[in-house]
């Protein structure tokens, strides 16, 4: 990646997205979310606020959750990006996805991919009780469920009573 002068200047990025190599020439200011959604047609990543609060756009950058609305595509140069599509099996649902379905942990579903990616990177041992689990989930806003069924889904997926 060569240095750029202006936010609109084009630059080349190379990254892996859900395991696939991606090489693109992008404006330096292009958001990672827009690269994923408009450049790669990975529309499972949703933009809910574009200022880093709601968490709907959460993706994993080298395994760590980031807001793709606050991350430039160039910041992902050389990195591995994982989106909701990347944590979804070819057929059916992952255990966490299945738990969300079984416990009605989603309604409109707009926020759901962000919850799933956040949870994908979380170690259950770090969140031993409901209070800490809710703290983990508090980085993602949901306007439909009141979180009750999301908490129930995660508890089930993590094999808690």
């Amino acid at each position, binding site marked *: 990646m060569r240095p750029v002068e202006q936010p*609109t200047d084009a630059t080349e990025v190379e990254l892996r997205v859900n395991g696939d190599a991606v090489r693109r020439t992008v*404006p330096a*200011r*292009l958001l990672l979310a*827009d690269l994923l*959604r*408009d450049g790669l*047609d*990975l*529309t*499972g*990543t*949703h*933009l*809910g*606020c*574009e*200022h880093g*609060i*709601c968490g*709907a756009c959460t993706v994993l950058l080298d395994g760590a959750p980031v807001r793709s609305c606050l991350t430039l595509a160039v910041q992902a140069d050389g990195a591995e990006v994982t*989106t*909701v*599509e990347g944590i*979804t099996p070819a057929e059916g*649902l992952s255990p966490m*996805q299945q738990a*969300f*379905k*079984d*416990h*009605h942990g*989603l*309604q*409109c*579903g*707009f*926020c*759901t*991919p962000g919850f*799933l990616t956040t949870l994908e990177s979380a170690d259950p041992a770090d969140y031993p009780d*409901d209070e800490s*689990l*809710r*703290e983990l*989930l*508090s*980085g*993602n*806003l*949901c*306007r*439909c*469920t*009141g*979180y*009750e*069924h*999301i*908490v129930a889904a995660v508890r089930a997926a993590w094999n808690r009573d």
Partner: protein
Amino acid sequence: MEHSLIDPSLGEAWRPRVIGVRSTRREDDAILRGEGQYVADVRLPRMVEACFVRSQLAHARLLGVPLEEARAADGVVAAYAADDLDGVAAVPDLHKGGRPVATYPLARDRVRYVGAPIAVVVAADRYAAEDAAELVVPDLEPLPVVAGMDEALAPGAELLYPDWPDNMLIDAPASNPDVAEAFAGLRSVGGSYTIQRVGGVPMETRGVVADYRNGRLTVWTSTQYPHIVRTMLHYVLGLPEGQIRVIAPDVGGGFGTKAQIYVEEYIIASLALRLRRPVRWIEDRYEHLVTAAQARDVRFQLEAAVRDDGSIQALRGQILHDLGSGEMYPPGFNPSFVAVGMLTGAYRIPHQQIGVRCVVTNKTPAGAYRGFGMPECTFALERLIDKIGGELGIDPLDVRRRMLLDPGEMPYVTASGARLDSGSHREAFERAVSEGERLTERARARWADNPDVRIGMGVATYTEGTAANYFFTSGHWTNQDSCDVRFDPDGGVTVGVGVSTTGQGLHTMVATVAAEALGVPIDNVRVVMGDTDTSPHGLGGFASRSTVVAAGAIHKAAGEVREKGARIAAHLLEAAPEDLELVEGGFHVRGTPHRGVSWGDVARAALVRTVDLPPDVEPGLEAKAVFVPPGVAHAVGEDGRLNACPTYANATHVAVVKVDVRTGIVAVVDYVAVHDCGRVINPLIVAGQVHGGVAQGIGGALYEDFGYDDLAQPQSTSFMAYLIPTASEIPPIHAEEMESPAPEIPFGVKGVGEGGIIGPPAAIAGAVEAALAEFDPPELTATPITPQDVHAIVTAAGRAS
């Protein structure tokens, strides 16, 4: 497989087969896999992006819009102001209740709120469109700002609409001699109750994609009512409705915010017509927080004529409602009339007289939000009942018990004319109170060692009008909705409905009801909704109506199909139709289960082997039905009363709060909702509706606020300021369902969508007041209740002692 009988008349013998089962949702797999299709996911060749230039002043004359620089900018396709958009008419003021506002989609000569659209720039991508939009500096001449209701009503106030004599969009005084008589003879207790400006704020903002090709306009829009959008596009753009297709794709939450038709929908559609290219506009969150419909912002003056036992003989008062600029369709005043209609809730209160005054100010236009007047009236009445208890020295719970309706009183016509068809008002109350008392004791024990913590419990009881005839003020004089049911030759069924989803689970609901009514497996039912080309005409999803009206229509259409199916089956089985019974998957001869035919056999005969049909039966196996909810009036009667809903849900909520008297922070630690929405189609989905509504209600009670400064500049323009509660603010919600079937609605169902949000403001205010009892708090009459409010009460008590 269970082969229970389904009585076609759904009479006494009917036993639900799939209704009432905790089915998972058919919507979920695609969404969970990241394969949802929201409006921002629509991709079309040659698509361009639009960005709006919006007013940064709350009130100004618009003198000019220089667009040359924007038009010359990189990547720009076009830029328009109102004068450039000929062929775009003013939005018709279809309602007859208030003064006309004649909103043009782009501002013509005046802007009345921060965020009002002035120009639109279209460019190759959103980055270029936003860059170019920044180059447009409208020539605005500031006008005096009307920043709130009191300023709007002050003598000599600046007029938002210069041809009006004042700033009242609607002024509806009330009078009732029975009320005057009650107040002449009884003690009166009153107060003024304020609910702040909040809104639905769905996680998906608004958005529109429009495309015009082959003589047809297709509009994808994140809306709650595609058919009404189509009709309004016809009015404003002049195209015949047959040339317009409106699609509501997956919608990322609505909550009433998307039960408005917005000026951006007309503008983006007109750009597609003009440019002959697909045009996309996806609202950003800042735009959403300053332009999407906001709600509440109501001051309710309420006074009760009280008997010695605390019970209420009559209520009188006035609702003062800040509509913002008023430039909204359907108009924002409707919730105040619902507040009048639903005021007495679950109580036996014989008389009322409530005036409504709706005022325009230089705030964002008001519109719909879940609850729609019911949180407002419930807050006022429940707070007033707590005050009555305090003034008379009677336990407020006992005041409520003296007025709660009993099942034997149903149907009960309230003071406003609402005809409560059924309910579990008293039992829901007692169950919720008892569970709330248990949880309150548990909380007291848990924090007994913390000297800064006080625990309190508050109660709110309400009724929720469902499938309301809200459209009488919108100029669409109907409450109908429809469905069509048609079989495929293999026995699969397609059910098209006019209701429209915003993620509540309506596809699952429709499939469940159709499977129940037809005796087919749920997985054999395909559901079509949200597309004016493929769904039958209907009004969409709002007013907790979808389940009531869709189930009503499906019941009718399925009945016709069943009857025809039985005739065909009888012919195939060489039996008499009356000797058949409908079982899971088909028909058999009563008492002879091995003599049966499947729906597939019947459908094949009806569609592709019509030679097998009886001679007097026409080919085809389908039916369309329209359902009009019964008992709903479209106008106020001579007695001043109106029943606006065919059926009413009820609930009691109890909030248990923990108040930290050192920091002033209020935390809801447990929340009880004992709720009755008639027969439950899917307990999982009903619980989800209650939870979500409660969470939004908690947000409104404690955190959310669309504040404005003295110049009507919006203060909540990001999620740093508009505080949506997170999982850490929302406590465990203990939801319990009771089931009082609606006696006059097929399957006994009632609506559920709005219930959860109605109780929290009243319950939480009562709980905080109770927690602070030792500090002799003033009556908490306004939301949100902030840490500053609590801190002020505690400090004032400290000073006093």
